[in-house]
């Protein structure tokens, strides 16, 4: 009898110690950061695949199922995941805690006046593509660490150590990325969508235009013609775009002006071989610096 009680106590204790925090993230970038901080003490899944545009997602019941048993859901925020609340409602999980990772980020392009649809898909709380600045990835990692520690205070030290290790790794990569990008400093580029504001500011690149006439609005021939003039005037060499957008209009521009279209994944698992945030940033930096 004693043995049985002892075994029961041990198994109860082991359940408590090694219980995984069930986490769902909206994007694969957050997914990777949660894995880095939580390691084996979290069970994590994501909603938006790396090759999907996170602005527009269909509401799939399978994603409701993912959230159904989760304890935490992390999001980018700033209006990027307009679809999330419908999935949360569908999950019927009333214990789910929603963590908005944008809270300590220094937001860019926050509209000051009245916004409406004539300006395109303007995000009312600021540009949400902040994860493309690795300094912001450190802030995201810190906030993830805090949320995991709140959820499992017994493991707070473990999460803190993982955060410190990851931050150190990021710091050394930031130096490497800065060096590689130094030859692009001050150089003009064109981007497809207005999603690179945090990235270009970090590395000192100048964006002189977007292939989209306004955020979220498909390219038009007249806007392309304006861009041709701008490219000629400013000496743009690169059109930078996410790989989930159609490259028809950028390729047409490239043919006319001799620029290069650089298609990159801006999410983890966005293309083969990109399995972490660091690999994603490596790929973006290498694609740009090799194509100048």
């Amino acid at each position: 009898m004693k043995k049985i009680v002892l075994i029961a106590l041990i198994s109860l204790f082991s359940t408590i110690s090694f219980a995984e925090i069930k986490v769902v993230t909206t994007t694969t970038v957050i997914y990777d950061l949660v894995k880095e901080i939580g390691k084996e003490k979290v069970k994590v899944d994501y909603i938006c695949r790396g090759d999907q545009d996170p602005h527009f997602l269909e509401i799939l019941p399978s994603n409701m199922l993912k959230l159904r048993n989760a304890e935490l859901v992390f999001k980018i925020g700033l209006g990027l995941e307009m679809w999330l609340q419908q999935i949360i409602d569908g999950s019927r999980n009333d214990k789910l805690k929603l963590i908005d990772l944008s809270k300590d980020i220094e937001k860019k392009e926050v509209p000051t006046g009245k916004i409406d649809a004539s300006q395109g898909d303007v995000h009312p709380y600021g540009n949400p593509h902040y994860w493309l600045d690795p300094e912001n990835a450190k802030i995201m990692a810190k906030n993830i660490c805090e949320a995991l520690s709140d959820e499992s205070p017994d493991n707070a030290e473990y999460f803190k150590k993982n955060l410190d290790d990851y931050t150190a790794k990021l710091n050394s990569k930031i130096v490497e990325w800065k060096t590689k990008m130094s030859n692009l400093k001050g150089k003009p580029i064109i981007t497809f969508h207005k999603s690179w504001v945090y990235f270009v500011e970090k590395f000192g690149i100048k964006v002189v235009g977007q292939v989209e006439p306004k955020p979220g609005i498909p390219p038009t021939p007249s806007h392309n013609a304006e861009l041709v003039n701008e490219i000629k005037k400013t000496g743009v060499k690169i059109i930078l775009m996410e790989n989930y957008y159609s490259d028809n209009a950028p390729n047409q521009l490239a043919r006319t002006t001799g620029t290069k279209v650089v298609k990159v994944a801006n999410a983890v698992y966005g293309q083969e071989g990109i399995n972490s945030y660091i690999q994603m940033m490596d790929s973006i930096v290498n694609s740009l610096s090799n194509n100048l």
Partner: protein
Amino acid sequence: MKNILLFLLVLFLITNIHSQSNVNPDISLIGTFNTFTNNVKGTPEYGKLNFETPAMEMFIDGYLNPYSRATANIAYEEGEFGVEELYAQILRGLPLDMQIKAGKYLVGFGKLNTIHPHAWHFIERPLFHQIFFGEEGFNDIGVNFSFILPTKSFYTNLDLGVFKGDAIAKTEVLDPEDADSYYDLRGNSPIFVGRLSSFFDLDDYTNLEVGLSGSYGVHAKMDFNTLGDSTAELENKSLNYLYGGLDFKLKYKPDSYTALTLQGEGLLNSRDVFRQGDVGVNIPIEKSEKINSFGGFIFIDYLFGKQFSIGAKYDFTYGIIGDEPSFSSLSNDDKNKTQGISGWFGYYPIEETLAFRLGVQNISFKYDDGTSRDSETTVTLQMLFSLGPHKAHPF
């Protein structure tokens, strides 16, 4: 006058809502404008470009508290305002993770009925909807209880509801001049509706949903002269119906620019109907008879370049589209049939804010008694706009 008052009330509500705090509900407006022509000789529309009165749907939607939401859909169609939907939902916090939806809304029988027509791939309502639910679909007043079943590897949902039954009886108005007369035919008999649906991720880009639906209840109550004797006392009888439904949707979406959708639904109808037999004592004997019939559709739609879509649909149903409601027509008709073939081309210039659709539908009729009737072809050009916040589309 009633319309003007309703419109003023809506305006007042919107203005008032805007003047309040940041807990305003979302307000969005869908506008629909159709022009069409057809080849139906003898009708005023024949061979002409006809302009329909623009239709409008205004959605007001928001959280009531952390656990529940409410939605109102005020529609303006054919020159009249009406409450298309008005319901509240308890989303979380209930035992067994149940959700409750109560009010007036599109009933979850099949997949397509709960989707608003502006979000369909095609223009015309499926023929079997028109026959078995009426021209506005299965829209009814009632309460629905929804459960997620514990099928771990895939999502399964069970809906069980009780409704007033107006939509079912709408197709049986004995006096077309008096649209409310169907109330008298049913009395106070609720109907029951259920749907079991499962959703599967076949791979990263392909999803499948299959559903089984059922609805049961009294569709009418009648006084029968079972003896065929004009002096005999009449016998009051209930006429029951049972609908069984099967639906599926398969979608392949390799990227945000391309999607291929294959979707279909079918309905089996088994019901008691009023029939007259041979003359009894001095008049025909009145009796109820069990009939069986069915209807369904299947369509394919291909979205390409994010902005364009092309598709085709095949429809079949028992009953003749456009017949006056009676106890031998529409859902009570197990003799005559209607078949439809349609095709469409859609252009969506910027996301879902604006849409243009060109649709062609050919309807042919088959009468059991050999009556000959020409097929009817209608060409419709539709413009849709969406103003205000629009939610992400459910699968």
